[in-house]
């Protein structure tokens, strides 16, 4: 066993023009840990998530994944991204490929797996997220919840060390949120390292080991879910929780 954190961010800063979206971010996620990032919109939580596989470059600071600093754009970065699964708010399934092709593309092209292995593993994953019967359909033919579960299967097909979820249920109809959260909860219970940006407080309470609260580009609180929800220390967190828990 090593003590190397799966994700380590140190003194990370980022601007979008004038806007200071990430301010001196320091965050470590241990292997097997599930961290939920909460915060009002515009607080920088999605940006934080996207910097970890360098979909957003940072201005200064360091980010390490499994002890390795993020490389610059190129082959090394592609190799690192293959180990970091990502699930997007808008699913982003490959529109011109079937569900099974979506799930097998990465293993075939990046991992150089054989077609039979990729399909066997892909089908098992689709089975696991409950949409194996949709394998030959195109993404547009699926419901949002099914698409997001397919997107999770696509990320898992790469056998990632860590999974990033960028508001995975925010674009879903309410009745479809639960099916996606169920898949994520199972994944968390299986020991996957996860960083989840979400507004789902139920998921944070149930599945998270830690809650990180962001506001105005800063990490304001970093606590266990129980402690955070029952006794937030900062005014900004109290204000945030007051707004979402009263309705």
């Amino acid at each position, binding site marked *: 066993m090593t003590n190397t954190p799966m994700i380590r961010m140190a003194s990370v800063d980022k601007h979008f023009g004038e806007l200071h979206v990430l301010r001196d971010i320091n965050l470590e996620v241990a292997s097997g840990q599930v961290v939920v990032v909460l915060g009002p919109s515009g607080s920088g939580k999605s940006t934080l998530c996207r910097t970890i596989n360098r*979909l957003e470059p940072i201005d200064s600071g360091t980010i390490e994944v499994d002890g390795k600093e993020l490389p610059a754009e190129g082959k090394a970065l592609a190799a690192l*991204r293959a180990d970091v699964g990502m699930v997007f708010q808008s699913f982003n399934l*490959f*529109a011109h490929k079937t569900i099974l092709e979506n799930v097998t593309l*990465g293993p075939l092209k990046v991992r150089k797996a054989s077609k039979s292995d990729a399909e066997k593993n892909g089908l098992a994953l689709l089975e696991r997220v409950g949409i194996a019967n949709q394998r030959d359909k195109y993404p547009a033919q699926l419901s949002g919840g099914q698409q997001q579960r397919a997107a999770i299967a696509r990320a898992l097909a790469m056998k990632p060390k860590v999974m990033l979820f960028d508001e995975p249920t925010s674009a879903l109809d309410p009745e479809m949120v639960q099916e996606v959260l169920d898949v994520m909860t199972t994944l968390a219970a299986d020991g996957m390292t996860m960083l989840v940006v979400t507004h789902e407080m139920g998921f944070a309470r149930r599945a998270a080991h830690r809650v990180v609260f962001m506001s105005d580009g800063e990490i304001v609180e970093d606590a266990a879910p129980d402690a955070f929800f029952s006794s937030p220390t900062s005014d900004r967190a109290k204000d945030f929780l007051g707004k979402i828990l009263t309705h």
Partner: protein
Amino acid sequence: MGVIVEQFPLYAQGFLQTLRICLFSAVGALVLGTILAGFRVSPVPPLRMVGSAWVTVFRNTPLAVVLFAVAFGLPELGVNGSYFYFGVIGLTFYTAAFVCEAVRSGINSVSAGQAEAARAIGLTFSQSLSLIVLPQALRTVVPPLGSVIIAMIKNSAIVGAFGVGGDLFANGVQLTSAQGYAAGAVLIGVLLGYLVLTIPGGILLGVLERKVSVAR
């Protein structure tokens, strides 16, 4: 109209020469233009510069000047060949600039999330372009590419007139100026020859457009 029947072999020969020029140039321009479009959206600044420079130079230069530069410039650089060869190179280089911009507009029409998802599973830039973005760009690219290729077919007349010879237009000129046929009738024949290329080309593109729009 008798000229079209009487001189049919010359028309047919001209048609085949035009077809040859167009086939070589179309394949060359589509391949080169797509590569240039890849350059223009690449994360590597020098490649982007090559792409934009190419488009700026060839899109803003009259085709006749491009052909002149190729035919007199390449031999200076030690590249020798027939006028046919130079004509095809000139038309390819020129048309590739327009193909590049049409393909680039198609690339920009694919949502950024598709390329992000491709990169997020570890595909390299060129894999993400060729496996994810370009196949989806094809849908929007077919109509403007069709216009570019049809313009190229008509531009092949300039290549013929430039000294390659033996194509539809050059043979038409020969019939009027050397053999004394009435220009109007000769040109109608020439025009028919081009229409035989462009109209089925347009229909073919329509079929292709429907096909790629379904395949998703």
